[in-house]
């Protein structure tokens, strides 16, 4: 199936796709950020933002827009001993990989920018580049806390990249394809015991759990926020950043939540299908229903991440590493072996 953003003129097609992706990137980050403020507020028995509104709608819906305007007005400070070029470029390097992953994520039948043959591989390769931006930021700040945060972050990302990739590999193994669109379609055809339609999240529940935990760790979300722990290394690599550049880091965290939730949705939760084995009508109606279903699943997953943030205390650095290397990675490897055997034994 062709992408719905395809037109006769190549240049126009590219322009439309880039605009749609960038617009989605910013809107999704704002929506998820607002939801987190509100939901975490209520979980902690307070109201969260109430005043800032967009027009007649109050309840703080305009809070993050106002925050963005505030960040724009702030002075852009580069410390005197910092390395100016690397310092200035780092937030962009951290942000771009998240943006590029959006290119391959399918939101509904036909609602994707590119259906790459290697979509999953591309997404995982791009997500590994973010850490270079973090390392650049931590080093160029010329600040011991920043450097420490960057080193912690790099160690954490290397450790949790493996379970993430391995959980994705198990899905590719079962689906027999690396294309994210292909994975969604194959997933909807899966019948457990030849009769019960299920998504990959059921037979691969271990993989789903691994992917979700590793995704939270990749994003430095609490309880895995050791690299940006505010109470001990004052926000790690972000310590010296102000204004728009700081906002970029926040933006890439929220957009990263959306992107990794979208990947989890596509890999384990049936993508755009509302229930296992469902059929969507052809044409625009199917595309709209599919997109709404995918977005609902993404929001549920991001709310789970917020719930985890409001519930669990921060892990210690050595606990983080021990958990990745002695629990998550062996589990992921064992899961791949089991899936491979099942696929070979069962036709």
């Amino acid at each position, binding site marked *: 199936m062709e992408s719905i953003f395809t037109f006769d003129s190549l240049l126009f097609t590219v322009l439309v796709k880039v605009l749609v992706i960038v617009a989605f990137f910013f809107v999704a980050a704002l929506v998820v950020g607002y939801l987190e403020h509100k939901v975490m507020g209520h979980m902690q028995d307070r109201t969260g933002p109430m005043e800032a509104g967009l027009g007649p709608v109050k309840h703080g819906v305009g809070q993050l827009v106002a925050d963005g305007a505030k960040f724009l007005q702030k002075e852009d400070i580069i410390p005197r001993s910092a390395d100016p070029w*690397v310092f200035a470029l780092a937030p962009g390097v951290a942000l771009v990989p998240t943006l590029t992953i959006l290119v391959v994520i399918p939101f509904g039948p036909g609602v994707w920018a590119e259906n790459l043959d290697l979509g999953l591989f591309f997404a995982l390769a791009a997500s590994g580049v973010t850490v270079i931006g973090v390392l650049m930021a931590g080093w160029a700040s010329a600040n011991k806390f920043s450097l420490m945060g*960057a*080193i912690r972050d790099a160690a954490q*990302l290397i450790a949790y990249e493996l379970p993430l990739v391995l959980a994705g590999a198990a899905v590719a193994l079962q689906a027999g394809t690396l294309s994210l669109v292909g994975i969604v379609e194959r997933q909807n055809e899966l019948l457990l015991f030849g009769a019960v339609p299920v998504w990959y999240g059921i037979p691969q529940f271990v993989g789903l759990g691994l992917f979700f935990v590793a995704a939270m760790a990749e994003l430095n979300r609490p309880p895995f926020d050791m690299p940006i722990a505010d109470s001990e290394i004052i926000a790690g690599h972000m310590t010296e950043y102000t204004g728009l550049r700081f906002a970029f880091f926040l933006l890439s965290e929220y957009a990263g939540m959306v992107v990794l939730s979208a990947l989890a949705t596509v890999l384990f939760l049936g993508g755009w299908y509302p229930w296992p084995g469902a059929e969507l009508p052809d044409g625009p109606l199917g595309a709209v229903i599919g997109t709404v279903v995918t977005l609902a699943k993404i929001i549920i997953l991001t709310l789970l991440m917020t719930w985890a943030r409001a519930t669990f205390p921060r892990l210690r650095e050595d606990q983080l590493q021990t958990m990745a290397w002695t629990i998550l990675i062996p589990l992921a490897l064992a899961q791949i072996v089991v899936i491979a055997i099942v696929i070979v034994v069962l036709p």
Partner: protein
Amino acid sequence: MSIPDLFMLGAFVLGGAAALLVVTARNVVHAALYLVIALVAVAASFLWMGAEFLAWAQVLVYVGAVVVLILFGLMLTRAPIGPMAQHNENRKFAVAVSGGLFVLLVTVIVATFGDATVDVTPVRVADLGEVLYVQWAFPFMVLGFLLTVSLIGALVLARREEGEGPLPDDTDEGSDQGLEDAAQEPGPSDVTSAPGAGDAGQQIGAP
């Protein structure tokens, strides 16, 4: 010139310039960052030649892992900001060797291919898997085994047995010193990464 040709040319120029900056940069962290650009340019060339899998593998392995290990190692051992003297006495020798190698490679490639045109046919990843895991399965497994053995060997070398060497508490300073010395001696950044990478492995492997 068509648009793909222009992109290829851009990747070549950018990658070449970045590669030159890797060896001439006055700051070792800058050199590692230029290496990122050079490696991405190589990935872009792969992409334009139809080797999609190779291009993303290049990004995943080299940019996402190797350069991160280099940077991680540098920052764990020493992370100087600002230019510093690269006391490398073999610079002239290195220029001669790399220049000679460059001329040799260009001559060989031009002599072999000349102005032959090669059709760019994108490789499907399923075909690639067929070749790699069916046709060449044995060499592939031997390679994997070799890498596993070297990984275990590195762990054994890095790990301190109980009762061997000084106590961990007083070795912290000593081993850092050793790493710094080791990091200062070799010139190219890929060699510099070795102590850092080993250290990361040690930290992770022996908690």
